[in-house]
């Protein structure tokens, strides 16, 4: 029989445009295949440093994101009550004039009563700078409920951090430890890396309550209880000390282990480092038997012992304090195993395996390099143990210290920025902690006046806090106050609560971007909706005006007064800047752009274009020329090319200089965007081979980093095993210094600002009746929907349209619960009804579900009875935004006490079977909201038919 003709060589594209994905925060390079003026196909860009050609489940569903019926179509002004979803379409002129009038009035009166919070913003170096020009202290993106524990834990310890600031050396690692939920961050890079490890046969150990995704392919799964990772790591550290398997040479060269800590109980400098008259930190030199500048290279520093300072007081090396802490029986495997949910044997074996690989299987690269002191080394030697940690560590109230414990473990093994270890990605490492301090002190906030600096910096001591003389916060979210002193990403999760309560002060105009605060991005949704709609006695809203920008009809839209509709990611300019969240790889700094590869078919504008326009309408200095004209009349692309943050440094580092031949620092190149587009929308600078490791102490790298503005000086970056910054807060709590916490906060600061990391039980479990709420409840994002706005995506919602509550078979049997049963999950603030699925691969004290699948009826242009609304559910309803009252009735936010990171993984619940009458539907189900864009009526999508000329 003759076979049918098959057209095997049809051109898939009239044109291929290379840009950057925005289906999550990975920012992979993509090739958009355009045919007949439509997007035909999107695949990965093989040249791109992030994804090297691959694409993920979301990225390959980008067409459905770009064409989703839920896209907003025009600017909207609210006409009904807030929350009613009643809007009228208005012109951009009217929208921009309205926004300008609202904001200009506040700026002239009291700029702090304006707040800009920008959610999943990938342009924080612009949005933050805009808010700085406005003069409000109230700016942050979503890091406070995402990853600030990781960022701060890392930056205060070794000047880098997991994910965007560094990654495992996938090429050389032989032993890889993965802590906490990671599927929802570093999507393609981690998958590519795991593939490499598998190919090479490196061992992968996962420490996670849940055995799905990456954990499913681990060689060993350790199903810990949520929030106990720090205890597990503490026990590993205990074992390294006990078995004397610590890289002491690495410690004396690159860390403060040998720095002398003053031991003088009650003194104002107790616990700080001993310094000489020039202010240099001291070590004890065993060669000369004398105190010596710790940075001298000709000394043999003591790690143990007790020494007498010139003033007669005693001091000990930080290492000695560490040994005392971690060798204590508190961290013995036998002590912690039960609490962690593993065995002492397992802990000892893992410690032994790690130490074996680190010390017996070293990796040596034949590349000569020169260290910070000018000493040449013939080879680069590495200890090939690598680690990665993310959400499961981050989202607990003990996350900052737990993250620091993991870094201490890495450092004791000598694995930071060595072959096979964990490698920095530029612009990191920074000096620990980084030098930029937060702006926004009370006296810096003045009408019609910019702040003197950027908002989100790093405090070095109590003097850097943003508080008044009575300790009251200057920021709405109380970041950098005694509630959350090291809140390096702000606390976006508290912005609406605090604004609604008028604590510390009311907000007149709140401007939000791309953050679904009326639904899955807030803790305690019911309370959040109350705050969003609460009124004053005169009938005005407590949160005076709410402006919101989003591309889609999310739940938040109905709660705003003015909607500025954004474009999809294929219709916009963007700048993925080294001034912001980098996409570099360990071998070199990288940045990227997006540019419009298709034109919007709706009356929408890119948020950043709009923000720049508003900046000049408000006459903000940075956005206005001296003659009052707009500084960037060409909008965002104009800003990307022509803005200079400091002379020669702008949003993009590639192809600077008039002729486009310099990297990092150089004058404006008018053709810069063209060069990016020609190169696939990104720029990658290749570090020389001898600059690629030991960057914290590598002369060649540090000189390069200084030349392009990544670091301020070429001094080596010393790892802060012992954090003097934390001790300074502790001393303030003990009554020293000009800036001290209010009495109500002293005990809390004393306890949690321990200069050495330690484990403590997550807060919620210690404040509720554990017998009534015996289970931990956590969430993870499915890989196909991580960090994306996936519910409106016709393809992705066929994969995850409703979620179940997953529970161990053992626990299910004990509770008489079987697959598909409907249950009530109850926390100390509320309850949610959902359907159960039993499994083996989950810690028996833990239940979990996929996050952000549940949607409110009427949102996202879905059918009102879509599975997302009828069966899908959120745990957010169960998570308190405030901790129960303590210490005189004051309620702290449900956050890490050091960084303010939202502690949404601390949740404790009980699970009970629902009655026969309660089957079939989730609870709570809120009243359907009216969406400004309707659900489509078409019962079929045949997208793609037009591309097949053979059949059309």
């Amino acid at each position, binding site marked *: 029989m003759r*076979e*049918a003709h*098959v*057209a*095997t060589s*049809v*051109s*898939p594209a009239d044109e291929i445009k290379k840009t950057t994905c925005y289906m999550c925060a990975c920012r992979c390079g993509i090739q958009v295949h355009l045919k007949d003026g439509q997007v035909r*196909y999107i*695949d*990965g860009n093989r040249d791109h440093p992030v994804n090297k050609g*691959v*694409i*993920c*489940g979301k990225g390959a*569903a980008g067409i459905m994101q770009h064409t989703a*019926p839920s896209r907003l179509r025009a600017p909207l002004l609210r006409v009904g009550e807030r929350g009613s979803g009643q809007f009228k379409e208005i012109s951009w002129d009217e929208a921009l004039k309205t926004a300008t009038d609202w904001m200009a009035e506040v700026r002239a009166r009291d700029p702090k009563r304006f707040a800009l919070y920008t959610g999943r913003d990938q342009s924080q170096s612009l949005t933050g700078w805009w808010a700085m020009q406005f003069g409000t202290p109230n700016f942050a993106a979503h890091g406070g409920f995402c990853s600030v524990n990781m960022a701060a834990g890392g930056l205060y310890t070794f000047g880098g951090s997991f994910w965007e600031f560094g990654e495992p050396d996938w090429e050389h690692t032989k032993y890889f430890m993965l802590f906490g939920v990671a599927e929802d961050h570093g*999507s*393609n890079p981690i*998958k590519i890396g*795991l*593939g490499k490890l*598998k*190919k090479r046969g490196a061992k992968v150990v996962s420490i996670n309550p849940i055995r799905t995704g*990456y954990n*499913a*392919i681990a*060689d*060993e799964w350790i199903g810990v209880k949520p929030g106990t990772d720090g205890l597990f790591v503490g026990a590993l550290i205990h074992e390294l000390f006990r078995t*004397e398997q610590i890289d*002491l*040479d690495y410690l004396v060269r690159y860390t403060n282990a040998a720095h002398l800590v003053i031991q003088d109980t009650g003194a104002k400098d107790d616990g700080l480092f001993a310094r000489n008259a020039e202010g240099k930190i001291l070590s004890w030199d065993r060669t000369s038997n004398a105190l010596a500048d710790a940075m001298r290279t000709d000394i*043999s520093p*003591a*790690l*143990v012992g007790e020494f007498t300072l010139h003033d007669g007081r005693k001091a000990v090396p930080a290492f*000695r304090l560490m040994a005392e802490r971690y*060798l204590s029986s508190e961290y*013995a495997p*036998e002590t912690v195993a039960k609490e962690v949910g593993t*065995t002492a044997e397992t802990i*000892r*074996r893992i410690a032994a395996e790690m130490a074996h690989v680190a010390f017996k299987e070293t990796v040596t690269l034949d590349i000569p390099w020169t260290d910070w002191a000018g000493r040449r080394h013939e080879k680069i030697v590495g200890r090939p143990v690598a680690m990665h940690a993310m959400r499961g560590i981050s989202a607990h109230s003990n996350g900052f210290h737990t993250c620091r414990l993991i870094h201490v473990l890495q450092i004791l093994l000598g694995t930071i920025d060595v072959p096979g270890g964990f490698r920095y990605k530029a612009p990191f490492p920074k000096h620990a902690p980084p030098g930029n301090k937060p702006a926004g002190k009370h006296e810096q906030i003045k009408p019609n006046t910019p702040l003197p600096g950027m908002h989100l910096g790093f405090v070095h001591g109590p003097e850097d806090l943003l508080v008044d003389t009575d300790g009251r916060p200057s920021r709405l979210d109380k970041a950098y106050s005694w509630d959350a002193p090291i809140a390096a990403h702000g606390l976006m999760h508290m912005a609406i609560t605090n604004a609604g309560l008028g604590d510390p002060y009311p907000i007149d105009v709140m401007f939000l971007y791309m953050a679904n605060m009326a639904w899955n991005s807030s803790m305690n949704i019911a309370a959040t909706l109350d705050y969003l709609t609460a009124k004053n006695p005169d009938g005005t809203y407590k949160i005076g005006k709410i402006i919101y920008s989003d591309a889609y009809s999310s739940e938040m839209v109905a709660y705003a007064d003015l909607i500025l509709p954004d474009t999809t990611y294929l219709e916009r300019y963007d700048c993925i800047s080294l001034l912001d969240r980098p996409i570099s790889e360990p071998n070199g700094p990288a940045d990227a752009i997006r540019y419009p590869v298709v034109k919007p078919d709706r009356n929408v504008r890119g948020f950043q274009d709009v923000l720049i326009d508003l900046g000049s309408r408000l006459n903000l200095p940075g956005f206005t020329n001296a003659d009052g004209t707009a500084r960037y009349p060409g909008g965002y692309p104009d800003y990307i090319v022509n803005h200079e943050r400091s002379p020669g440094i702008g949003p993009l580092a590639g192809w600077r200089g008039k002729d486009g031949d310099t990297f990092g620092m150089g004058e404006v190149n008018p053709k810069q965007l063209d060069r990016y587009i020609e190169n696939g929308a990104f720029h990658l600078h290749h570090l020389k081979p001898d600059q690629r490791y030991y960057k914290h102490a590598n002369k060649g790298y540090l000189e390069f980093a200084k030349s392009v503005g990544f670091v301020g000086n070429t001094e080596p970056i010393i790892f802060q095993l012992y954090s003097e910054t934390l001790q300074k807060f502790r001393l303030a709590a003990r009554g020293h210094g000009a800036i001290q916490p209010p009495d109500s906060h002293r005990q809390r600061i004393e306890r949690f600002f321990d200069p050495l990391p330690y484990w403590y039980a997550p807060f919620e479990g210690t404040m509720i009746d554990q017998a009534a709420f015996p289970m931990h409840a956590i969430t993870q994002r499915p*890989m*196909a929907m991580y960090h994306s706005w996936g519910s409106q995506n*016709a*393809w992705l*919602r066929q*994969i995850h*349209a409703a979620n179940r509550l997953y529970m161990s078979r053992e626990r299910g049997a004990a509770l008489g619960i079987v697959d598909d049963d409907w249950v009530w999950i109850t926390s100390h603030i509320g309850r949610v009804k959902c359907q159960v699925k039993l499994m*083996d*691969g989950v810690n028996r004290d833990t239940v979990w579900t996929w996050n952000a699948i549940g949607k409110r009826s009427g949102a996202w242009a*879905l059918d009102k009875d*879509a599975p997302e609304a009828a069966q899908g559910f959120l745990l957010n309803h169960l998570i308190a935004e405030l901790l129960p009252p303590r210490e005189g009735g004051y309620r702290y936010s449900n956050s890490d006490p050091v960084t303010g990171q939202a502690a949404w993984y601390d949740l404790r619940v009980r699970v009970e079977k629902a009655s026969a009458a309660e089957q079939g539907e989730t609870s709570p189900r809120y009243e359907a909201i009216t969406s400004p864009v309707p659900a489509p009526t078409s*019962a*079929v*999508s045949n*997208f*793609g038919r037009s591309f097949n000329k053979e*059949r059309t």
Partner: protein
Amino acid sequence: MTALPQSTKTKLGLVIDLDTCVGCQACATSCKEWNTGGYSAPLSDMDPYGKDPHGAWLNRIHGYEVGNGETSRTVHFPRSCLHCETPACVTVCPTGASYKRAEDGIVLVNPDTCIGCKLCSWACAYGAREYDYADGVMKKCTLCVDRIYNEHLPEEDRVPACVRACPTGARHFGDLGDATSDVSKLVAERGGYDLLPEMGFKPVNKYLPPRPKRDGSTAAQPAPSQPVAIADPTSALERVFAWADRTLSR
């Protein structure tokens, strides 16, 4: 009823590594995306924004647990047409629409002659066929027949969309009829296996099994060189102090 070719020149197929697949769905959506505009266009979606969204997918990923308790493990299992050497889905086809190509062994459906009777999907033991309710014809994995020979694509991209996409490198494409091909060597090295071999359809696609775990049950136990518990923390501390009390150079 439709006849099969006596033999095929090559046996193109996929090798899927279950040891490496994390279940990320990249292959599923990449497949959907390519094929909804390719040879099989469209892969219709019914009720796409409604109560019961469902559509035609040529590749679906299932995640499940195997074993019980301590021996239990989570497996992600991508499922698509295996391009069998003796596929019943072809031989049951009343119109000849379903056929196996003599050139490369790819099993295809000709949409122009498919009458949507669904006999083939009943015959397929692997559930690999997908009826397109809007289009009224059967759809299935084409092994991206419109990519692998496509001269408009760079040579390195002439692989199925799922292989091109896979972030962990768990999917491999090649000629399983050639014992010297990379995919055949991989199958030999890793003990690649057929699904349901007892059914006799002789699938071309192979699966590589998950490697044995290396945890407490299998790991070589390092000899405990020191006492296991610290009976006296002070003496343990003294031991560490003595050990660390040495000349170290900066």
